[in-house]
């Protein structure tokens, strides 16, 4: 029920407050009624036809860096 997928905005329609997003290979229309300050090429989290939030590339990179860091400790200790 609460599953949501990251999708990339490929075009926006200001009149209807909607966007076409690419969910992998598939393009779907989503509402932008719940988000602010998004633009083309941004990634948003899509849930029940709505963009819920913008995804932060910086934070994603930081989280991946943390995984790798934990991995390093893991390797060093094992």
């Amino acid at each position, binding site marked *: 029920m*609460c599953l949501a997928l990251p999708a990339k905005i490929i075009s926006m329609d200001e009149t209807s407050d909607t966007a076409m997003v690419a969910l992998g290979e598939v393009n779907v229309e989503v509402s932008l009624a*719940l988000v602010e300050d998004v633009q083309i090429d941004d990634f948003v*989290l899509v849930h029940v036809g709505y963009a819920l*939030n913008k995804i932060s590339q910086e934070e994603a990179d930081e989280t*991946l860096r943390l995984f790798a860091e934990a991995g390093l400790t*893991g390797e060093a200790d094992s």
Partner: protein
Amino acid sequence: MKYIEDFRDPQLAQKLATAIKNEVEPDRQYNLMEFCGGHTHAIFRYGIQDLLPGNIKFIHGPGCPVCVLPTGRIDSAIQLLQAEDIILCTYGDLMRVPASNRKSLMKVKAEGADVRMVFSTMDALKIARENPEREVVFFAIGFETTTPPTAVAIKTAQADNLNNFTVFCNHVLTPAAIQNILESPEVREIGSVSIDGFFCLSHVSSIIGSQLYEFFAEEYQKPVVIAGFEPLDVMQSALMLVRQINEGRHEVENEYRRVVSRNGNLKAQQLVASVMELRRNFE
């Protein structure tokens, strides 16, 4: 897909597993509860339990709003379908959920009731526009992720003078559900279910923000980590919980920073507040 594959990398998973193995204290038991079925799904689908040491145990929480929906609410929808000539729209999740007398929305649809499965509240509005002579009822369910889309639908229907659209509102709040679990005798009383830390919800938190959990960490003196739904997110969050438990800390930490902020989605919160009122009890 971006933001998905990176968070499922098997090599990184092995490294995280080693890191967790190195950090758990062998004599200690780590009982970690995930509230959300999304995490349970990741744990089983990717075999995360098997990657972790035996003294880390996942305790599966309440799951999802569909699982906790009282049967009476589906009975009410079925009665409505039988009494009035309505079109009932709802998310697919609800279709097979059993109602009383072995009924379900799927079964009454097969018997001729006009039940339409929708992907979005926008689809329900479209059905209302296309059927101006009939009443269209949206059976709204879900936690804080599906509530804002319902609020948008109500606002849109009002703005467009769509007078044949109504909402049967069954939205529930997660903090209340979590509190119910924490207050249950099984958890509160020593010796039955002991929980050492919590994985908190990914997408609900993107709306409500991480600060709402600060109360839980403080009140129940348990560590909380807001965790993403991908397998590496769950493993990293498990590591963060293990560290908090080892160090005797009980804080709210946010592993899912790429989506969840401290304050959440203020626009969505305001929309909900402008359309809905909080009811203290559900049943």
